[in-house]
């Protein structure tokens, strides 16, 4: 009996603690409408992750360059690769104190999940900040030097060639599916959840191509282990004047835009126009600084500054291009 009482006591203490924490969680100084006064930066990765570093860098540059006087805490909502962050923002309609660093992944996450609690369409896009140029890498000793030659090889050996990458919902697989469709070829997709095993898969010869950002491959290329066979951009990139773009190679991307990976800022639904204006002013100041330009360069990002209708269109185009592919994958897993 006594032991039961003790267990009960412990259980009660735990419940009290839980209740206390819940209370902390729900009290949030609501700064609805008007100018933001207590901003929190929502990201979809934990400390050290891509979006986390991106947001922290923005704040650091803004503070260094005196654009920002206070400090904006970076809050991680990492559930479901963007879904958690989007759902969190959806629950704060009209609240001008929350902004988030979104990526193209968020759009796909919303499409791929039937039970998605929120999608990009729910949020207020504020500004597009950067575009990460995607390139196609292959082992240096591969018998093909361009994507066109790879496609020819894939056609000769249907279902034999291997592309490595992340989740099947990632944009590199989606764009590959589109190319397979338009070119009438078929190859395998080998998923790894980390980047490093993808590179070793190429080096080992288990995989033939990998679509990613230039910094993922730069050092291996320099060491003569990998080579580029195509660039998803409207012009050739610095340092690789001999690598033709996808358009030059006349590979049909179907509905896909050139922008495959991008980073931007979005707010909760129904954010007041003056708040959107406030953030656009803030980011135009940050992006004008030298610190920002240097940062983007070091990360291999191309600066962009797209707002308003143009931004809405850009997001919609990407969304329209990926939607049928994602839907097709759910049907045929």
């Amino acid at each position, binding site marked *: 009996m006594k032991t039961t009482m003790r267990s009960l006591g412990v259980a009660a203490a735990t419940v009290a603690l839980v209740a206390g924490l819940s209370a902390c969680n729900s009290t949030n100084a609501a700064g609805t409408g008007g100018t933001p006064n207590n901003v929190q930066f929502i990201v979809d990765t934990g*400390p050290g992750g891509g979006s986390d570093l991106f947001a922290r860098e923005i704040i650091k540059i803004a503070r260094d360059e005196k654009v920002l006087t206070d400090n904006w805490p970076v809050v991680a909502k990492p*559930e479901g690769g963007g879904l958690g962050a989007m759902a969190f923002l959806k629950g704060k309609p009209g609240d001008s104190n929350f902004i988030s660093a979104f990526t193209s992944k968020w759009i796909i996450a919303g499409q*791929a999940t039937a039970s998605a609690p929120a999608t990009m369409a729910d949020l207020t896009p504020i500004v597009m900040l950067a575009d990460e140029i995607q390139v196609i890498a292959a082992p240096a000793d591969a018998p093909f030097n361009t994507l066109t030659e790879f496609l020819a090889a894939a056609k000769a050996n249907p279902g034999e060639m*291997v592309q490595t990458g992340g989740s099947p919902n990632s944009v590199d697989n989606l764009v590959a599916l589109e190319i397979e469709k338009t070119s009438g070829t078929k190859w395998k997709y*080998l998923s790894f959840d980390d980047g*490093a095993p993808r590179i070793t898969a190429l080096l080992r010869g288990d995989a033939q191509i990998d679509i990613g950002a230039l910094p993922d491959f730069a*050092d291996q290329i320099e060491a003569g282990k990998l080579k580029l066979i195509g660039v998803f951009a409207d012009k050739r990139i610095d340092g690789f004047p001999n690598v033709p773009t996808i358009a030059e190679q006349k590979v049909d991307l179907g509905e896909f835009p050139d922008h495959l990976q991008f980073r931007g800022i979005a707010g909760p639904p129904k954010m007041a126009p003056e708040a959107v204006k406030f953030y656009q002013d803030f980011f135009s100041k940050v992006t004008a600084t030298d610190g920002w330009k240097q940062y983007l360069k070091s990360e291999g990002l191309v600066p962009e500054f797209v707002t308003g209708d143009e931004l809405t269109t850009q997001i919609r185009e990407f969304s329209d291009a990926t939607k049928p592919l994602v839907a097709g994958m759910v049907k045929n897993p």
Partner: protein
Amino acid sequence: MNALENLIEGLGSALTPQNLMWVLIGVTLGTVVGILPGLGNPAAVLAVLLPLTLKLPPTTGLIMMAGLYHGAKFAGSTTAILLNIPTETSSVVLCYDGHQLARQGRAGPAMGMSAISGFIASTLGVIALTFLAPIIAKFAVAFGPPEFAALMVFGLLLVITVTGKSPIKGFISMTVGLLLSTVGVDLFSGTQRFTFGNINLFDGVEFLVLTLGMFAVAEVLVNVEQVRGKSLLTIPKGIRNLLPTMQDLKECRGAIAQGSITGFLVGSVPGGGSTIASFVAYTLQKNMSRRPEKFGKGAMEGVAAPEAANNSEVGGAMVPLLSLGLPGSASTSVMLAALLLFGIQPGPRLFETNPEIVWPVIASLYLGNFALIVLNLPMIPIWVRLLKIPYWVLYPCILVLSVVGAYSVRGSMFDIYMLIFFSALGYGFRKLSIPPTPLLMAFVLGPQAENAIRQSLILSDNDLLIFVERPISAIVLGLAAIVVVLAIYTRRKPGGRMPTKSDIDPEPLLPTEPQPRKVNTQP
């Protein structure tokens, strides 16, 4: 010997009074922060404290980070041994023998052994990194999905061999662990598994929440039924009983050597990591030991082998990082981020292009470990006094830390509800004498095994021969087969090669189970 010269030069540039001060600060900070569950993960500690190190010159910053890293790792072992709370994945295995030793009043020697074997292993790790990096790098590249799958199959088989007296209960525990590990979005199809449409489950069950529930809170729940107002565990008096004896060290020679080699090799494979390294080293040691019956009841070797692996893994993980530019585990990916922030791009040519940074990094890793042992060996008597805290103070503290720890991983209330669920599960396991450790091991190894097997089958168009066609995976699978045959043989034949194993067969209690009842009835 060019490599040796470079290493000595690296040590020289790392060994300035200022750097020494920072490495000590790093170790202390890392230990303090690492004691807290949730922050205990060395990768998280590094990520959180990274901005601090950026104010320093690159070499100093990296040295401080190495100190932080080792401090956090030691803290993880400390809480696992003293309180049965693993604050990071690689210290889980210490809950097996480390905590049993603490229950027998040998907490000090266990912690000392953890620090000493860790130090020896990282010494060996640094030496291997210095001389063997190019060869090991080739091995790391050759280690693909089929090889990894074979290693994971080996690992899971070994999990069964450590389940103790009742293989069925161990198997139940392992199966629950495997099931829990499938929760989340499937990597290969994007399909949700057991998420019930709840986005909090999309990324799976958080390891730390599972551990805190199954170990920390469940332990408190079981123990409050027993304690009668006394301190929990006995602490022997005198410094001699607080550090490992020569006899202990002698017994553990083989374990330290085995753990160091295993840890280094596992660490050098991208995707390996210290958790797998420590599990594999522990189970290998149990199967190789002349005293396997002591494992799970407080075998010093059961502390030495995994801790050696845990530490030499760092050296191993630096191989792909420095020679290929690929992070092998979570901690090295933070190191990679740090190198990048300092404007250094690691990669195949790093040793040639930036020797002035590579060798100090290797030297500083080593220095961090050295500082740890200098600082923490004398501190062990103080740490051990944690056990003197009366239960009515300690248990509420553990509960608070567990709840805060569970919350802080992702800042999610949902994880606290999960903590309550796993606490109840862990309590039930203890009441039914089902060992919780196979669950955790399976939870960690399961997804890796599944991914590697499915990746292999994608490559081979579902042809199972891929696992035996590639030499490394064939060798690993062969070893696994030998382990199975040996296990069956020794179980069947009391006079077999490992006769000691059969001696304990009739014992009804699971050796892997903490036995609070026994301890508390002691005068």
